[in-house]
């Protein structure tokens, strides 16, 4: 799979969580990439983001969420 396709899939996953009403609750980065914690009421899900383009996209979504708060 090309890196572009991989990033599109990761972006799609980010959108899926947000479309379902999840909020970005926490994020941490390490040698393996970025780990984003999505939360909705009691439910928590962690998504590992590997690609650079998806990590950029995530930051834009976090900006959107922050500006709405």
């Amino acid at each position, binding site marked *: 799979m090309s890196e572009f396709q991989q990033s599109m899939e990761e972006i799609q996953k980010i959108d899926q969580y947000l479309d379902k009403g999840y909020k970005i609750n926490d*994020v941490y980065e390490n040698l393996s990439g970025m780990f984003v914690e999505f939360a909705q009421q009691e439910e928590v899900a962690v998504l590992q983001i590997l690609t650079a383009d998806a990590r950029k996209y995530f*930051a834009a979504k*976090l*900006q959107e969420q*922050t500006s709405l708060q």
Partner: protein
Amino acid sequence: MADLHINLAGIKSPNPFWLASAPPTNSGYQVQRAFEAGWGGAVWKTLGEPILNVSSRFAAVSYNGQRVAGFNNIELITDRPLEVNLQEIYETKKKFPNHAIIASLMVEPKQEKWHEIVKRVEDVGVDGLELNFGCPHGMAERGMGSASGQVPELVEKQTYWVKEAARTPVIVKLTPNITDITVTAEAATRGGADAVSMINTINSLAGVDLDSWNTVPHVAGKGAHGGYCGPAVKPIALNMVAECARNPLVNVPISGIGGISNWQDAAEFILMGATGVQVCTAAMHHGFSIVEDMIDGLNNYLDDKGLASVMDLVGRSVQRYSNWGDLDLNYKIVAEINNDVCINCNKCHIACEDTSHQCIDLYTEDGRPMLKVREEDCVGCNLCSIVCPVDGAISMVERPSTIPPMTWNERQTLISSLSK
């Protein structure tokens, strides 16, 4: 015609083109011929206690047929007594009262030594002083030149001593042989410098002869490091000028030096904050007459830009120079190949495939070999357009980003605010 006069910290000259302190400004004969050719100023070859030179002093690096892409020297400061130089400075200034003559000075880091030479040099009517804290070879082994220019405390203290005695503007010439030139530029400013100039030469060894195994140059079979200059050092010098120009603690004018070979180079230094420029290697390579094209070219450029004076150009690009963390991560460019112009050398494909992001595809259309960029995989690195030998065959074009601008610093602030 635009006005090319400059005023650098009170030193006025008819144009921004000065000869740097170096072999071209060794004598009154040379400086007077330079002024007749059109140079606006000259920084006299460094005055100090007359030295002894070795024979075999220069070497050049040629690259793919370009002669003198870089230039290396192990020549020291003036080897003539001070009185001889002062007499020639006096005569030259008398003949060319409207041209700038700046005396480059180098003495031991002692207050009384600086006071003495400043007084004697100013008595003959120089327009300013340039403190040589930059020469990396020979004199540095004796505690002068870059040896003192690499120590911020010594830069500040010596500048202060000079300012105690000086009546003319003091320029401090900085060495690039240091991790962060803004540290010594700040030190010079604290010491009272009226301006800074940069860069002096970079520690270098031009080469090794593969037959004799001697260094290039060598002196009876032995070599020593020299100072590197010429076109190869221009990007290093331009960055150092720009870093100083955007540093609020270096709030003095800058004289730009380093590989300036034509009016375009000069304009780039001026845009990045230099009030004027100093030239050496290009004059050594092509002679004093190169200044004619420099003057004409800069004049035409200023006219094209609608600027009445070269002083209006000074620093116009400084605000565009920033930290990496303040660049927009979401700005997007991609390569675009014009197959009508492409000669199918495939250098772009090879470069991209072997050393970048594997996004240039080879294919055939109507039996004709073609190249195409897969834009979704192109990161906009520019490599293909850099290696392409045909003008116009590859363009880097902007693509609208689907997400808003965000810098690394903004991103980090955003993420850290989430975890609070």
